[in-house]
């Protein structure tokens, strides 16, 4: 059984480590904030200029001067700090953000990421994604394993314009967890309950391998 969106989020939350500063991308990654294990100390960075994102506000707490990078209203956690965009990306580019979790349109076997444009169709811009993948110490992608119409998204080479080259460390999908090892096949480390290695191979356009039996994703 493929994971639900919520289960992908819960699996992605297992990437968090105590003391991490983390930047969460828009969409599925943003939801990881709701699954931080109790007692774990995580500081969420928002590239529009904040460390220490709190929960969404109540109606009475809504403040138009306080938003996240997805332009959603938010609150500040205790100990939060604000800064300008150049400082924000100094943190990101300078390797001070431990982990970023991002969505993707395509990922290649060697960890290339494409998530910012479809030529002739969609031109929204890359926002902060190119800086995040260039600078964050660890880059994890969460996405559906295949696109609509079973089109493969994990490929030997991306066909879409890249966000970064050889930048992704791990891919978490509704079917499995894959680790990128540039120059070698991707390593299938975990499978969703009831999903087989062959199921993954069939839906993956890149070379994958296993070392022993992949673990079942713990939920």
């Amino acid at each position, binding site marked *: 059984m493929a994971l639900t969106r919520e289960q992908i989020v819960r699996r992605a939350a297992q990437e968090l480590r105590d003391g991490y500063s983390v930047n969460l991308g828009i969409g599925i990654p943003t939801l990881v904030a709701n699954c931080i294990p109790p007692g774990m100390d995580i500081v969420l960075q928002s590239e529009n*200029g904040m460390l220490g994102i709190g929960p969404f506000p*109540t109606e009475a*707490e809504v403040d138009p001067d306080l938003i996240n990078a997805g332009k959603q209203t938010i609150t500040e956690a205790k100990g939060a700090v*604000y800064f300008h*965009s150049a400082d924000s990306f100094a943190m990101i*580019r300078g390797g001070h953000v431990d982990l970023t979790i991002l969505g993707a349109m395509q990922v290649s076997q060697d960890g290339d990421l494409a998530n910012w444009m479809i030529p002739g169709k969609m031109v929204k811009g890359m926002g902060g994604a*190119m800086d995040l993948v260039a600078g964050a110490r660890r880059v994890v992608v969460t996405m559906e394993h295949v696109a609509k119409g079973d089109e493969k998204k994990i490929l030997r080479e991306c066909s879409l314009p890249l966000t*970064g*080259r050889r930048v992704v460390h791990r891919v978490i999908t509704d079917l499995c967890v894959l680790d990128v090892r540039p120059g070698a096949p991707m390593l299938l480390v975990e499978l969703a309950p009831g999903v087989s290695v062959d199921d993954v191979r069939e839906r993956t356009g890149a070379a994958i391998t296993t070392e022993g039996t992949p673990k079942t994703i713990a939920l």
Partner: protein
Amino acid sequence: MNKIRPSAKDALAGIADGMTLAVGGFGLCGIPEHLIAALRDSGVKDLTVVSNNAGVDDFGLGLLLQTRQIRKMVSSYVGENKTFERQFLDGSLEVELVPQGTLAERIRAGGAGIPAFFTPTGVGTRVAEGKETRIIDGREYVLERGIRADFALIKAWKADPNGNLVFRKTARNFNPMMATCARVTIAEVEEIVPLGALDPDAIHTPGIYVKRLVHGVAYQKRIEQRTTRPA
């Protein structure tokens, strides 16, 4: 040294067709909404606008797109604006998409007298095409140019008459760098306090960067994604 102007319209004096403007804000947060409205009313056109986003169809920089006063946008993300998309696809609007951190640093560098810098962002992507690259300590970097503007239009929370500025929460975003990158920086603020009322240790933008001030009243401060939890 009187920096305070009586209206947004007066504050914009000297902005002419074809100029390059840096406009603060992230989405609709921290945008100089009164200066943008006055700029639309002024009718200046063929502008190059450096701003992280392009507003929404009927607010922020979207107002200047509707009236076709902008010839070129330099931005990192423009996804929330259909007018923008239409003008871009029909070729009437030129667009330079820049990674957000590179955009912030290009503006910071421009304001700090640094003409160009090497960054790892965008290496191996379309962003690096046609640009000089260099391997430094084993890693590849791309050369990006600093940005200078004729005018910067920014929004702060509080100012004193010297133009010292304090921003509020995430409305700070691109405003402090933009204040530094222009020949003339115009700041609109929610409150102008007397000299000495701001703690000198807590000023975000020193007044040396700010040439003109205007007091904005009745801010709309529109919210793009109102997300709440139950009380």
